[in-house]
């Protein structure tokens, strides 16, 4: 068993980070899903050995990562935050991280080069991190996590802020790591990101495990929740007229400079919307979804469960 979490709780003073979580992880890729502030990062940091559980126990490969320095060698952690030693080049940064993880001095540079190559950063490895884009920073962080060849990877929001092309590439590289036998935990607050990586998810909400298992089952629950799409355009009435009769559209509300569509089938609605825009030559200035975060969905799910009770 890679990770065993047994009745684990973590408080920050009076603030509860994780509450009485029990969970076991054997291997493969597992997605840790939850809205911002749900406790994902706290759980990941406890698995990385950065935080000590306030109550309960958490072991990685049978040892407490907070107390056992040796087991931390087998863990690779890419934090959520952006902060790094920006003045270093990517190669210098990853080399230092490999050495801090115990890689011998004469091997560290080679290990760093291989890790950066694996993350597609060979061409940029001699550039300073300061000048990197968000996507390049994420890749560099992933390289720091894998440079010492750990067995267990903890990736906290590795796809946040990454452009779609880089996202596909990073997802593919993470999948390869799992295929090579590494256990990977990836956290995200965006369901679609996790779906592209794995079908095994653990849903954290308000510090507790709300659901765990197959992503498609949980997706079905989520899809029952009406999804809102806000379109800012020059002719909102044309869009409303076209979509008003569609069976997947539950409600249409006119707003200043646009229209808010509530749908039970986001995929079909986006297709229909694109078709209307093209057919009628409508100029769209912005397209957003107020529900594009799990917080709203979780509120819905928990509200629903309370309602049933």
């Amino acid at each position, binding site marked *: 068993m890679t990770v065993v979490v047994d009745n684990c709780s973590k408080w*920050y003073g009076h603030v509860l*980070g994780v509450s009485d979580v029990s*969970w*076991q*992880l*054997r*291997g*493969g*890729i*597992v997605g840790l899903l939850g809205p911002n502030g749900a406790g994902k*990062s*706290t759980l990941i*940091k406890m698995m*990385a*050995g*950065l*935080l*000590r559980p306030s109550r309960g126990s958490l072991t990685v490969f049978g040892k407490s990562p907070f107390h056992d*320095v*040796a087991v*931390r*060698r087998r*863990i690779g*952690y890419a*934090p*959520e*935050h952006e*902060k*790094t*030693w920006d*003045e270093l080049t990517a190669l210098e940064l990853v080399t*230092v*991280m490999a*050495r*801090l*993880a*115990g*890689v*011998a001095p*004469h*091997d560290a540079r080679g*290990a760093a080069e*291989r*890790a950066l*190559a*694996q993350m597609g950063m060979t061409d940029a490895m001699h550039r300073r991190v300061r000048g990197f884009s968000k996507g390049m920073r994420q890749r560099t962080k992933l390289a*720091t996590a894998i440079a*010492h*060849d750990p067995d267990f990877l903890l990736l906290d929001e590795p796809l946040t802020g990454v452009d779609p092309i880089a996202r596909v590439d990073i997802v593919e590289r993470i999948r*390869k*790591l*799992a*295929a*090579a*036998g590494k256990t990977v935990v990836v956290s995200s607050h965006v369901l679609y990101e996790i779906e592209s990586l794995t079908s*095994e998810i*653990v849903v954290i909400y308000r510090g507790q495990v709300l659901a*765990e*298992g*197959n992503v498609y089952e949980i997706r079905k629950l989520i899809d029952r929740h009406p999804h809102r799409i806000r379109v800012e355009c020059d002719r909102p009435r044309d869009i409303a007229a076209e979509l008003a009769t569609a069976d997947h559209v539950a409600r249409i509300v006119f707003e200043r400079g646009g229209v808010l569509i509530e749908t039970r089938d986001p995929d079909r609605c986006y297709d229909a919307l694109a078709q209307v825009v093209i057919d009628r030559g409508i100029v769209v200035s912005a397209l957003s979804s107020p529900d594009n975060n799990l917080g709203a969905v979780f509120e819905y799910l928990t509200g629903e469960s309370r309602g049933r009770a």
Partner: protein
Amino acid sequence: MSDAPVPARPAGTIHDLGYKRYGGARLAASTRWLVIMRQQVAHGWKTWWRFKAALGLGVIVTFVAGGVMFLLQDRAVKGVVLPEGIAATLTDATLPRAMQWYSRVAFLVSLTIGARVVAGDVQSGAFTFYFARSVRPRDYVLGKLAGMCALIAMIYVGGPLLLAIARLGLSDSTDELIAILPVIPKALAMGMLGTLAFAAVPLGFSALVHNPRYAMALWATYYLIVGGMAWVLSRITDSGIAALDLAASLDRIAYYLFDLQVVWGRSKRIDPALALGSVLAHAAAAIALVIYQVRRAHLSGIGGAS
């Protein structure tokens, strides 16, 4: 998760990952302080204004002091300008007098690097990088302290040692050379004491607050203003409180160590034993503070908690 299917592990399959699994040595956690020390030195060396400029000043101090030694020892100068004997005394006085200049340069380094170390790591989130790897709080403290010592020692040990060697080279005879040979261990001892003070004390200030700028300001205030106030208080109260002035204490120890009878400046009011006690107490208190703060930060998850 217990009912979830377990992904099959690869059996006899080699995945093309673009790299081989690391098969080299894994070093013991007890060696990690060396990595941190090296990183600290590399960080200081990275830009001109952090360390190289101060090192340049240290080199200038050494050249100027060496030049003064040479001029005072030169027979022509001795014959023309100064009576015999006085010149020899002044030559020997050059090294301890130069220590106050090394102190000023070391203070600059302690300000640009030392006072920012822990606060900078907390602010930059570097604690996450350290403690998510096989690094213990004591490795961190030892590594940072050793790194600062290495940087300060280049100036505070290297400079005086070169001057001591130069002094030996200026000896007129083998007898004189043998007589002044203790100048080498004295320069080393003085250099190491000053290095400890300028490495440890600002590190302590850097652990007091989480903002590097505030830490720098605190250290500068303590060194420059509190020291001066302690000297004034000592004049008023006629007590040994002037030993709180680190710069004056180091000067006093240098004068005592090199048998300099004439004592200049603030250090006049400080007893050598009290000065030594003050420097050691400052360093010990600072190291204890760093250990306490880093351990506390590690336990509470600072840098690890968002």
